[in-house]
């Protein structure tokens, strides 16, 4: 197969798979975090402010993993360095 076509196919497929598989883990982790935060708020309603803030910080840390997968998917689709190289070579 031509290098150009192969790069396109692999980039598209891997971008989709990256986002699909890469968001399973963070979603499960965030679900667990929110569940324990809700339990804690139910047990100590006075501390709801602190617990909510800590929850948000923790969610942000967990979400960073999904964000890194998103960045890779975006780079593969929109700023693919190999695509530029092959397009430049095919244009010559």
């Amino acid at each position, binding site marked *: 197969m031509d290098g150009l076509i192969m790069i396109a196919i692999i980039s598209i497929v891997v971008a989709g798979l990256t986002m699909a598989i890469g968001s399973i883990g963070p979603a499960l982790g965030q679900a667990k975090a929110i569940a324990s935060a809700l339990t804690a708020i139910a047990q100590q309603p006075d501390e709801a402010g602190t617990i909510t803030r800590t929850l948000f910080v923790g969610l942000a840390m967990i979400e960073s993993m999904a964000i890194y997968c998103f960045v890779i998917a975006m780079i593969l689709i929109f700023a693919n360095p190999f695509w*530029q190289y092959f397009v430049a070579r095919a244009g010559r």
Partner: protein
Amino acid sequence: MMKGGIVAMGVEDIILWQCNWFKLNMTILNTWIVMAVLVVASAAITRSLSPSLQLTHWQNLLEVIVLFLQQQVESVGLGQNFRYLSFLATLFLFIAVSALGNIVPGYESPTASLSTTVALAACVFVAVPVFGIWERGLGGYLRRYLEPTPLMLPFNIITELSRTLALAVRLFGNMISDVMVVGIILMVAPLFFPVLLQLLGLLTGFVQAYIFTVLAMVYIAAAVSGSEG
């Protein structure tokens, strides 16, 4: 859409006016609109403040917002310092108002462009050392990188950089996904569902503004208070 670097997803490609070194695109124009709304509204409302219980509705609204943010800043441990409040409240208000403006047709939130969110994250990236050095001195701030052990120095540096990137991409990803989903649903079921998705986008806009501010607060509090924070 494919250019040499990270591409802009449409909002930056609409160029309104151009001279030989400056391109006025929709992102810059919308940023100016948000700035104008914030500055003009604040100036108009605070022109006649009344300290008694007889307030105008607008002053009441501003007081609610300012007190809420002040409460958040205090509970993180940053105390009563006005400089933290001014920086963090500006971040929150800018992101919230730019998300709120999506109600107006023809307006696109400037935070839906990677340039704006990277700029906001860069502000936080610069503000954390500035506040840390202001509060604890240069030596005290740099010593933080060697805690808990000097072996953690490269990890601390990488943490700084990756949190800034995560701040920028989190806000950008949330805003642009709302825009894209509404655009796609407009092609599929254009009568009623785009409105619901725009409401969801409004909600996530406010939540993301709050998360951005809370994370900036926590980073500044960690730099300012040191080992006990």
